[in-house]
């Protein structure tokens, strides 16, 4: 957090200095950051929808309200591959040799948090999913050894990247199922178009073996969205009508552990929606969900409130009014959690107390199409 140190020094100097002394020549330096991503640091994607060649992610310090730095992504920049230790991350990027055309090269570029400099690059197959940013299109597996990237050409497959060796392991077909939902260091599942789940395992080198596809778990007329939430133990999936499907992934074939509803009779007319629909605070079991009033086909409408649930009790315990709208929500995982929201078309990133819902600050002047929010993987404990 040298940035802040420098600012502090400058302020002290302002107060202490004799007004008549002359300024001395200064040295121009490059900022560096702490080696480890701090609990209240957060990355936010700006896909720059009307200028998708120039997408980026901003690294913000939610405590000070300062921007700490940024990375430039490739075409249609999505989410970052954040290492669990908060020291490094990877950036999957699509590049064309002449900007909008020419030879396509897909890479994962590795960075250190400490200097945000482009380091090692792993070339990956030029097939990565391009579209709205979803974390489930490129997650890091628990433990952090591998990242699994979803490909759609429209043939479906995944590319496995070894995060420690910073190398590409290979491409593996997943026919008929897409997105990637990790359930352990070497286990994940995909969602199939027909409402089933497809489990898969990684071997020690990261090679993928598909397991037995589950039976159909989700209704055709109320399918789960892409925007599942990992509690650290289970995946929760949401449906347009407000159902929560909890997945049991313990056995070889995934099944439904239980299904509950975000909405009671008294809440008729409200639905979950948005792009990053929900976020879960592991230490307290609080589930934050973006809700809006609307009918069918409003499943991607931004939220006007955040409803907070005790996920274990499947009961709402709080409503947070947003004084506006949000398309993304995320909560930090530390003991004094912050609640983050962003909204395309607005350039403010909003920081709230995740326990009280109180607005702490707006970080202003950021990009116009902020989507996925990625809080620090470091909890400070």
């Amino acid at each position, binding site marked *: 957090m040298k940035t802040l140190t420098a600012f502090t020094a400058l302020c002290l100097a302002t107060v202490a200095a004799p007004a008549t002394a002359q300024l001395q020549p200064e040295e121009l330096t490059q900022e560096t950051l702490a080696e480890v991503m701090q609990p209240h640091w957060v990355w936010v994607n700006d896909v720059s929808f009307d200028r998708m060649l120039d997408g980026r992610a901003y690294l913000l310090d939610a405590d000070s309200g300062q921007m700490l730095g940024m990375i430039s992504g490739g075409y249609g920049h999505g989410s970052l591959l954040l290492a669990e230790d908060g020291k490094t991350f990877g950036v999957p990027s699509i590049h064309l040799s002449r900007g*909008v*055309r020419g030879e396509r090269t897909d890479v994962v570029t590795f960075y250190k948090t400490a200097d945000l400099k482009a380091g090692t690059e792993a070339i990956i197959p030029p097939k990565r999913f*391009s579209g709205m940013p979803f974390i489930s299109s490129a997650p890091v597996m628990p433990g952090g050894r591998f990242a699994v990237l979803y490909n759609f050409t429209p043939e479906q497959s995944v590319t496995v990247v070894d995060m420690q060796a910073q190398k590409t392991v290979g491409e593996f077909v997943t026919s008929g199922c*897409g997105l990637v939902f990790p359930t352990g260091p070497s286990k994940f599942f995909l969602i199939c178009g027909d409402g089933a789940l497809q489990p898969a395992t990684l071997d020690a080198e990261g090679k993928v073996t598909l397991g037995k596809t589950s039976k159909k778990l989700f209704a055709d007329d109320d399918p789960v969205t*892409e925007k599942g939430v990992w509690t650290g133990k289970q995946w929760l999936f949401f449906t347009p009508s407000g159902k929560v499907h909890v997945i049991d992934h313990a056995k070889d074939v995934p099944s439904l552990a239980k299904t509950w509803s975000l909405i009671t009779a008294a809440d008729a007319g409200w639905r979950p929606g948005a792009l990053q629909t929900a976020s879960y605070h592991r230490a307290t079991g609080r589930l934050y969900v973006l809700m809006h009033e609307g009918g069918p086909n409003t*499943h991607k409408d931004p939220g006007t409130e955040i409803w907070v649930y005790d996920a274990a009790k499947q009961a709402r315990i709080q409503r947070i009014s947003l004084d506006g709208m949000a398309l993304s929500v995320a909560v930090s995982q530390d003991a004094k959690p912050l609640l983050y929201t962003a909204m395309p078309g607005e350039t403010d990133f909003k920081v709230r107390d995740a326990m009280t819902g109180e607005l702490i600050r707006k970080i202003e002047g950021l990009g116009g199409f902020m989507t996925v929010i990625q809080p620090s993987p470091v909890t400070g404990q």
Partner: protein
Amino acid sequence: MTNRLDRIMERLSRTAARGMSRRSFFGRASAFGITAASMPLLPVSRANAAQQPGESGDPQSCDYWRYCAIDGFLCSCCGGSTSSCPPGTEPSPITWVGTCRNPVDNKDYVISYNDCCGKSACGRCMCNRNEGDTPVHQPAGSNDINWCLGTEVGVVYNCSTAVVLGAAD
């Protein structure tokens, strides 16, 4: 929603023989239900298209009936039209489809939202409507996918069309 998609798929399987750029992008896709999205560019002549009956509304407005499941910049505002890509951009051969009700005859039509590709985002007439939009793991109906993936020129998205494939029933 899925009943409607089933109908779309059925319809498209009937018209598949008319396919143009279709086969080269089929590959494994047909194995997992993306057939509906891999619809042909139907070889109806331009002259016939211009005599389409039953149209009303402004193709440069997001309210226009064909846009009920669109997400992107309207090609009609970018040098193209509902059924043509702007000069120098390449139509995606595969894409998502929606079913929209035409206010003139009150019938449902299958609309194919082919993306135009190879120049960057037009930026005009952004329009997002999600009638029947499906998650990306049901790609045939998903408007969150960049469908420029199927083009020769590559992945860069310029704008979206809204082509009538036919009646939905």
